[in-house]
């Protein structure tokens, strides 16, 4: 077998450069405004899967609640945008002008206190990462200190997701309920609904995502990254090497939550709303499959997975809505049974050796000449 070690993969740049070229050059040139905006929407899930690679792939903590962190980030920016859209002039017909419309419909006469800080853009940017991370911290710190892990932790994240989703839906007056926060218009006066704005946001999203990939690489290549792997494989030994394992797990879980929050914010900006249907139990577990399909040990692979599954979802559910759930279910089963390392694993086990055989005629791939499969 001509397998490449995962480390030689992480240390080479080919995959990253190809992804950057694809996102920054090929897609903008080849796709129309509408499709490009769609890709941008898919890429906002890329942030989530980066976090999953860190906490699930490398540390072994499966979270079934990433949708919630995605949602919290999305709601933070949505609250800011909603406040900007709800000027007294725009809402003059309401019984209480100057507050978001859904609050007015729910007989609120005053802006709730926790909405107040979202008048500030700086606070909002901070909150997009800090709110998900804070919730993640409370959960993770308590659980990991008590050494709850594995499937128990996974189930508990799912329960937390259920709780928060019910809360958001139930507290209509404060959150917009099942409809979510809609009718978002401008960001600091810049209309985000135009094609130009969508294009601009696409590029912002891509640059941020590439930045986060680099950040993820930095973490994985540091000693911290190796400790994470060590925790996944032999938690007890790590304790007896003098590390407080709970702190490391908490850190990586919070980091994943913060990344998901950024993704949620980019989603809201590009799509123009945020609602509970995007963030519940089902979407959360779908995010896990993006990551599993792309490769839970590969940052680039996971982002590719998010793109591919979302694109397939759009295509399939337009053309054969009946078949989509079959395809999705089949994906879950096939990936776990046959490709536990996802597409990235397939690429490194088969495609790269094959390519290098064809182009270089040798059996062993020299490191540094590893090609990555294009994302789509």
């Amino acid at each position, binding site marked *: 077998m001509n397998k490449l070690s995962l480390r030689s993969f992480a240390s080479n740049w080919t995959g990253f450069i190809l992804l950057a070229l694809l996102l920054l050059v090929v897609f903008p040139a080849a796709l129309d405004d509408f499709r490009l905006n769609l890709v941008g929407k898919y890429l906002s899930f890329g942030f989530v899967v980066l976090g999953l690679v860190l906490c699930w792939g490398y540390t072994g903590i*499966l979270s079934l609640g990433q949708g919630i962190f995605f949602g919290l980030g999305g709601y933070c920016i949505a609250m800011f945008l909603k406040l900007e859209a709800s000027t007294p002039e725009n809402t003059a017909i309401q019984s209480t002008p100057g507050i978001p419309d859904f609050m007015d419909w729910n007989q609120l006469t005053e802006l709730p206190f926790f909405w107040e800080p979202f008048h500030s853009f700086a606070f909002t940017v901070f909150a997009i990462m800090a709110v998900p991370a804070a919730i993640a911290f409370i959960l993770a710190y*308590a*659980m990991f200190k*008590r*050494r*709850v892990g*594995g*499937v*128990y932790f*996974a*189930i*508990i994240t*799912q*329960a*937390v997701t*259920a*709780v928060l989703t*019910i*809360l958001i*839906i*139930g507290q209509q007056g404060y959150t917009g309920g099942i409809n979510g926060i809609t009718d978002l218009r401008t960001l600091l006066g810049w209309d985000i609904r135009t094609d130009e704005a969508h294009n601009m946001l696409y590029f912002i999203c891509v640059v941020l995502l590439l930045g986060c990939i680099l950040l993820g690489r930095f973490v994985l290549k540091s000693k911290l990254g190796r400790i994470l792997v060590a925790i996944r494989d032999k938690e007890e030994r790590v304790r007896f090497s003098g590390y407080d394992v709970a702190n490391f797990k908490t850190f990586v879980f919070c980091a994943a939550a913060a990344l998901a929050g950024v993704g949620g914010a980019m989603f809201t900006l590009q799509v123009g709303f945020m609602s509970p249907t995007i963030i519940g*139990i*089902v979407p959360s*577990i779908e995010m*896990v*499959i993006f990551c*599993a399909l792309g490769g839970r040990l590969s940052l680039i692979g996971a982002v590719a997975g998010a793109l591919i599954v979302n694109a397939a979802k759009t295509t399939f559910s337009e053309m054969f809505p*009946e078949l989509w*759930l*079959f395809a*999705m*279910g*089949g*994906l*879950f*089963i096939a*990936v*776990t*049974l046959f490709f*536990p390392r996802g597409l990235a694993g397939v690429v490194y086990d088969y495609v790269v050796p094959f390519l290098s055989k064809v182009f270089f005629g040798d059996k062993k791939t020299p490191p540094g000449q590893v090609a990555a499969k294009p994302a789509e």
Partner: protein
Amino acid sequence: MFDYTFAELSSILVMQGFAGLILFSVFILMALGLAIIFGQMGVINMAHGEFMILGAYVTYLTSHLFQDYLPFAYPAYFFVAMIFAFIVSGALGLLVEWVLIRHLYARPLDTLLATWGLSLILQQIYRSTFGAREVGVELPDWMMGSLNVSDTIEVQINGLFVMGLTAAITIAVLVLLFKSRWGLQVRAVTTNRVMSGAVGIDTRKVDRMTFGLGCGVAGVAGAAFTMIGSTGPTSGQLYIVDTFLVVVFGGAQSLLGTVASAFTISQSQSALEFFLSGSMAKVITLLIVIGLLMLRPQGLFVLKVRR
């Protein structure tokens, strides 16, 4: 709540308690099969709800069969349906174990993903076969109506029936686990898998039978479920998270723990519903359970095993 008289208050409490008991029955029915599979085998079966719904659809089909061909026997159709439900869900369980689960025993987190995929496929099969709308069965006459316990308290007969059925199924599972040869083997394998093989127990076969039985019990649960609610393709998903919490909270390996935790969770939820909205009651119940799990990660009832 100070506007109520004492009599009114107590009858409301009784009614809430009764609602809690129905919820308790649903939890138990779901959790029994799950506890067998998760507690004994360590497999997270996210498709458990779909096995239950399969039982409900089988019951629905059986009721039509009786209506069309055996109308005179209609009052008794439910009991036949229950047997069918057990067989069909159990058989599917055996198949799933053979095709899917047995390859994943060493990877519990992956069973979670694979069975989630299975649940999506089953949901779509149900949707394609029975339509997206919920279907209900016609209750036989003897199950309609309600009993008046006092002037202000009345209880539905179908609710009582489901409770009785739940008790019967629970006892049946307990008897099976503690009195039958199969139960003997399951308990041996749970206690010490390696040693069980070394006294001649075919552990793989026990795994398959256990998974099949857990799914079969889910099917029976689905049949019972039709008596108090209608069935749609995604009905199974509604309860899966709660049920997992019930099982985990009770201590994964203890069936009695499962019963106790189902009782606690269902009663506290229905009691809270009196003071709060339904969704807030659920939120608070779930939060309490999560909080307690932080204090006792092994669950309420840990089986003490001397090694």
